[in-house]
């Protein structure tokens, strides 16, 4: 291509991109929805979802009424548990559990204190409503910790002062460090996860909508007779929507996630935006394919939502790859969101750079090339 030809090609591309942007700006409802996704939606996901157990209501059947049993009950307190009082028979306990009024019942047997003092092992029963397994698991885990603490203190008291010095006993002390999110703030994970999901949906939806709208209104015929190549028709749609999405990601990151959830960005933001750009490009390839097989916006929406599901499932956001069956783990390798997900958390939370992420980046780039070319090829066959 000579220089003049290239300038002409470039000018047309720019003109079309500006046209797409203008068209978007003149659709206030769509703009509103886009900004809703990047701000309110991300905020709600980050602040609303909290998977820690707080104030789980627990009641006690105390058959012993001794100093030891009171001491144990006293340990079931906030922030994890909320002690709601005593009940006297299992019938009441069952009906309260059935109705979901309380989460757990602690049952302390008779002669609890006496047996403890005699040096026997005593078991207390903890009945927990595990209809919701997250709650059931956490409540049991905290209760186990509480009883273990009680047990240890009691043993220490009985073994006498010489065992008070723990260093003289052969035990392993567990020194754990939670990396990347030391205070285990749910908002970090949730808000980023929501941002990635929103980005995926819009990156597929917006270019597809822009393309199918031309079809619906019949303006596609005008474009087909204009001196534009299919690439010149499609690329501006991807570029303009990509710019809007990158802007949205920036807004979401700098106005919502970083200031509100105090996310410390460990890695390079430049790399993150490069990866996001590449990802938008990949996802829009899928979107263009959707646009070629549907006739109306309603169909586009349905197909996008349908496609979103396997993409989300295979992204590894909620279920990490190691928890999946082997077949699914192979399938994950063709889900673009899987790479995007890995890289986003690695860059933002773990501070990873290109040396670690090059293989994911390569995978995403390859997928992007394949998907985008496929989308353009389908479009060309339809209108070229």
């Amino acid at each position, binding site marked *: 291509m000579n220089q003049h030809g290239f300038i002409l090609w470039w000018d047309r591309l720019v003109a079309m991109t500006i046209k797409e942007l203008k068209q978007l700006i003149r*659709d206030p*409802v769509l703009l509103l*929805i886009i900004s809703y996704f990047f701000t309110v939606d991300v905020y709600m996901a980050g602040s609303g*979802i909290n998977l820690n*157990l*707080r*104030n789980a209501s627990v009641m006690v059947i105390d058959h012993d009424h001794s100093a030891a049993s009171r001491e*144990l009950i006293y340990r079931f307190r906030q922030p994890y548990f*909320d002690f709601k009082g005593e009940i006297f028979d299992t019938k009441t306990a069952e009906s309260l559990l*059935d109705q979901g009024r309380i*989460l757990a019942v602690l049952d302390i047997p008779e002669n609890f204190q006496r047996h403890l003092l005699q*040096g*026997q*092992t005593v078991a207390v029963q*903890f*009945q*927990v409503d*595990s*209809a*919701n*397994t*997250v709650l*059931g698991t*956490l409540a049991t885990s905290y209760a*186990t910790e509480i*009883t273990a603490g009680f*047990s240890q203190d*009691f*043993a220490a008291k009985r073994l006498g002062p010489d065992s008070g010095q723990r*260093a003289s*006993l*052969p035990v*392993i*002390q567990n*020194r*754990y*460090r*939670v990396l*990347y*999110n030391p205070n*285990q703030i*749910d908002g970090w994970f949730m808000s980023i996860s929501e941002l990635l999901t929103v980005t995926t949906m819009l990156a597929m*939806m917006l270019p597809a909508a822009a393309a199918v709208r031309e079809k619906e209104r019949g303006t596609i015929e005008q474009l087909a007779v204009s001196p534009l190549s299919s690439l010149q028709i499609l690329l501006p749609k991807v570029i303009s929507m990509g710019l809007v999405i990158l802007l949205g990601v920036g807004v979401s990151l700098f106005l919502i996630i970083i200031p509100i959830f105090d996310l410390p960005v460990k890695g390079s933001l430049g790399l993150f935006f490069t990866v996001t750009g590449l990802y938008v490009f990949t996802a829009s390839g899928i979107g263009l394919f959707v646009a070629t097989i*549907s006739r*109306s916006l*309603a169909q586009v929406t349905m197909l996008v*939502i*349908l496609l979103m*599901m*396997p993409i989300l*499932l295979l992204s590894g956001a909620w*279920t*990490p790859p*190691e*928890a999946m069956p082997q077949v699914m783990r192979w399938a994950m390798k063709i889900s673009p969101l899987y790479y995007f997900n*890995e890289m986003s958390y690695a860059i933002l*939370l*773990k*501070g990873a750079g290109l040396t*670690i992420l090059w293989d994911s980046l390569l995978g995403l780039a390859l997928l992007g090339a394949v998907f985008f070319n496929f989308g353009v090829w389908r479009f060309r066959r339809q209108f070229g």
Partner: protein
Amino acid sequence: MNLTRVWAVTYKEWREILRDRLFFAMAFLLPVGIFMVLGYGISFDVEKIPFAVLDRDRSAMSRDFLHRFMDSRYFYYQGHVTSERELDPLLANSDIRFAIIIPPRFQEQLLAGQATSVQSLIDGVFPYRAEVAKGYVSAIIANFNAQSLASHLAGTQGKSREQALAQVAPLRLESRYLYNQALRSQWSISSGLMMLVLMVTPPFLTALGVVREKENGSIYNIYTSTISRSEFILGKFLPYLLISSLNILILWWVVMNIFGTPFKGHPFFYYAASVIYVICTAGVGLLLVRTQVAAVMLTMVVSFVPAMLYSGLLVPIESMAAATQFESHLFPTLYYLRITWGSFLKGLGWKELWFDVVALMLYAVILWIAGYMNFHKRPST
């Protein structure tokens, strides 16, 4: 209300749905699709956590200790490393999510009756998983400690191992998991997802149906016809109610047969409650159809967020702030989730759940009145 007219609209709508092949297929595929993806995609079982080991002691005891992790189904051994620096890239690349570092002189100190410490590094990107993993690690170490202490006491104080064990760990917690004995997260999630999917898809389908009428301009035929507002809304709505009622059965089947969740309640009670719930959620679709097609997306958002966040499916209601707890009682999802879990896992019926059913009925009535007020035969232009 003239039932012949209602029937005419219903029949027309049904034919339209049947003729739009893509829509018809979607009406049944979409709910099941969302269901399968979320059912398999959201799993809170924390198992096979990949981990690596840095063993600075390399003794019989450290190997015995590490084998407790390797043999556990909760952990998945990925190999040894020789220096701490090797762990960072492995963790950063998510090749491992947990690392354990054993100090030098581990065995020597334990045999000498002294305390030692191991360090565990846990990937905290997903806090819930980190929390559960932490619990597993503490449990394994506590178990090791109890045995180590018991044999130490047995050696120094001349007691039997059982006595020594009772002395170091006098209290034991026996947990009984009610309603879900094996703690399978798929049981709770799959049944809970009935609530989510039936919240999201019915309004979506209704909204698409009404929007189609407006897009095609055929709504003007309705405006000029003798049909009354309530007749039109009812007639329009019945086919979608039928589709959603069938979807309840399909999803129910999937929950029981593909996810293996038991159903302990009363089938008729649950089906009736589900239909009332679907009337509510599809009614949401009638409310939202005034705007343009982009509103379809809005429908998804408006119904998805409360269903995810405020229903108690993922976020325990007790853990919410007081204001959020109040908010969560404003959405029908909370009541239906109680009915669902109550019916599937707890085996409850009308006697225990009547309040939730009445709440849903109230919702249905309010939404219907709002939908009626919202639809005008004389468009304001």
